[in-house]
């Protein structure tokens, strides 16, 4: 992003520092400093890596959500979809293990990506072809996916085959040169997301559709196609998150991914993406996901506030973030 972009766009000349888009990173830095002051263990490499790794799921799904929200859409089904994809993936892997051995993991991951993309496509098509509000459609599919995982796990736990555990474990717990794999995967997803959003025609059309769908249509942009594609990207991101998630607990349950949709939307919005569409901030979304996870971590470490109140603090953060945004953009 850095210097090349600024050189190539002289129209940026004369614009002051964009405090609005820096705000999530400033907030992130402030919370890190706060954490360090409250408990010196917070800055321990182990703890930090742990926190960052745990935020990977929300960050990965958040990248997809950034696309959806930037087109003016909303996806409430991501948490349930994650659980559903996880369930399908485990069933596939368990079914293929006798014939494929450890290769069943790759097959399962491939199936997960396809199922994720199809779930997204389903959401997108119902919304664009059926002309129904994204809120309503994904509220419906949220229930459907959740019911499916409950049905598949028979209300209990759906575990992966014991023989796969050792081979699959490193995807969540392993590292490359000290950087955990989930963090590397997140980085890849974010880089691809940023490239799509800021460097391609598709990205330009995403923000155009979110900014004003009529203008986009009158300019020859296929509005429905752009919207549907955003949901497909969201589905693929959910699948990637599922692939990282399965080795963590080795199982899917009816509560897997519950309420993640709220965390994802919170991360996206804290990150500076406009909920009404038209402005996308992929890196901001990552900052948002980190902020949520770090707050939870600091609260656990601090003993000052009960960790049962984590959600309350996160809820307060999103409101404060929005107030700050209103305050800075009003001037």
């Amino acid at each position: 992003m850095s210097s090349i972009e600024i050189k190539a766009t002289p129209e940026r000349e004369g614009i002051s520092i964009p405090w609005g888009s820096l705000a999530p990173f400033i907030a992130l830095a402030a919370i890190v400093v706060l954490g360090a002051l409250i408990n010196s263990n917070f800055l321990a490499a182990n703890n930090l890596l742990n926190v960052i790794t745990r935020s990977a799921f929300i960050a990965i799904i958040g990248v997809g959500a950034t696309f959806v929200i930037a087109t003016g859409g909303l996806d409430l089904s991501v948490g349930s979809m994650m659980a559903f994809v996880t369930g399908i993936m485990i069933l596939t892997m368990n079914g293929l293990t006798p014939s494929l051995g450890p290769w069943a993991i790759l097959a399962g991951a491939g199936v997960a990506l396809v199922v994720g993309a199809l779930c997204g496509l389903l959401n997108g098509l119902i919304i664009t072809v059926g002309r129904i509000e994204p809120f309503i459609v994904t509220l419906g599919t949220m229930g459907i996916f959740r019911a499916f995982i409950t049905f598949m796990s028979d209300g209990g736990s759906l575990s992966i085959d014991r023989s796969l555990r050792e081979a699959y474990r490193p995807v969540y717990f392993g590292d490359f040169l000290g950087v955990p794999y989930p963090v590397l995967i997140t980085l890849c997803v974010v880089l691809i997301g940023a490239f799509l959003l800021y460097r391609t025609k598709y990205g330009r059309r995403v923000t155009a559709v979110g900014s004003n769908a009529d203008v986009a249509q009158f300019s020859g942009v296929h509005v429905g196609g752009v919207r549907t594609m955003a949901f497909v990207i969201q589905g693929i991101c959910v699948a990637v998150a599922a692939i990282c998630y399965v080795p963590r607990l080795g199982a899917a349950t009816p509560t897997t991914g519950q309420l993640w949709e709220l965390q994802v939307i919170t991360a996206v919005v804290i990150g500076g993406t406009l909920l009404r569409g038209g402005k996308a901030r992929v890196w901001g979304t990552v900052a948002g996901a980190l902020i949520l996870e770090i707050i939870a971590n600091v609260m656990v470490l601090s003993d000052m506030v009960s960790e049962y109140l984590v959600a309350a603090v996160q809820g307060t953060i999103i409101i404060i973030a929005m107030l700050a945004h209103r305050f800075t953009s009003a001037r």
Partner: protein
Amino acid sequence: MSLTLTKSAPVSTAAPALTARGLSKCYGQIEVLRDITLDIRPGEVHAIIGENGAGKSTLMKLLSGHATPTGGQLFMDGKKVNFADAVQAEAAGIVLVHQEILLAADLTVAQNLFLGRELSRGFMVDDRAMNRRTAEVLAQVGSTARPTDRVGDQPLAQRQLFQIARALLDDRKVVILDEPTAMLANDEVDALLRIVRDLRDQGVAILYISHRLEEVETLADRVTILRDGDMIGTWNVSELSQRQMAEQMVGRKLDMLYPPKRGTSKDAPILDVTALSVDGGKFVGSLVVRPGEVLGIGGMIGAGRTEFFEGLMGLRTAQADKIVLNGESITSPNVKRMMAAGLVYLTEDRKGKGLLLNDRLGPNLTLQALDAINPGFQLNRKGEASALDVAVEEYDIRVRSLGIEAGKLSGGNQQKLLLAKVMMADPSVVIIDEPTRGIDIGNKSQIYKFIDDLVRAGRACVVISSELPELVGLADRVLVMRGGRFVAELEGAEITEQNVVYAAASNRKTAEGRTGT
């Protein structure tokens, strides 16, 4: 033209209802209004004219409490007043009727009029009383709507009347009208001007902002001219001709507003439409467009001109027996296909459908031609930047910085940006819907020049316009639409305001085919 109202009383000499002395306004470092002194007397229509960016809207905001002055003082009936907000100004009897329609589409007319000040009986809203009062003011402004009609179902012209009706619910000393006729067709303009005269005769002081100089000449008693934030002066309207007003506005002698005509083109059609049916037969028509001509489309607002051409563009459901565009045969138009074949449409709704107001100029300019500028998957940022440089130069888009958002441009510059945007696709036929709506006379003549240039370069231009002088001044040939059908074709000397109005307004049976009366 139907502006036949005559002025009655001589210019009012009553003591001013509202006086501004030395009014100034700065936004940050930028002074947008300097030292404005004027008074508005009861029983007069005081017109404010000036090019876009001259400071008219800022002045309106200061007078109506929507903004506070950074210098100078307001007086009402000789006493100093300061308004913190529009509510205080309204309480003092000053009301601004916005140019844009600010109504809630899903509420009824009465609910809109009383929004925020509902009448009540105890805890319950008193719908009956509100509907009764609404019916009274609707009658006063000559609206045919009922108080219980949903606003969203009403045409734009009616909504404009509702805004004025809302301003009249209470007794007003000063009514400020910001380009009230910008969205109206000629007969509706007449009705509105009558209402304004009625108000004046009741002793209301009226401040009237308009781009239509002929309106100012017929309606106003005095006129104040602004230019670049300065006040040029106040005159009795009888002292100035329209031409003199225009020259004071732009600060120079005006060249001919319309470029010379090109004459009827005899070339083979570049676009040939046979029986295009839009929205399931509501709008139906056939037409040919030849290279090197400006084809004007006349008609009343609501005649279906915009709908027909949006259909031709593939922006509505439409089906034709045959469309031949640059040799390509098409029966069901869709936007991408039509654009690829060389047709573009410049919408009348600049802010709603034309530009991304929150986006910068670059993305706006290239949105329609993304594939042409960026052959690959990736964006070609260098290409985009140089496209913007070229467009700003070629279309004379005046901006302080290329990095600002399109919404911050004046109407004229927005229109030029929009024109540059649709021309990026290098079309051979350009449809322009209301090319100069809401823009000032300097930019108008520039846009006429652009249209002339592109037609002389061998392209064709279809101009849909509700401004008769514009239609007559620009078009080599005119089609008139009425009730969703083309009812007349005019060429050469037949193109007069009278003929267009006659064809647009008269009974279809008598106007079928050509009219020459």
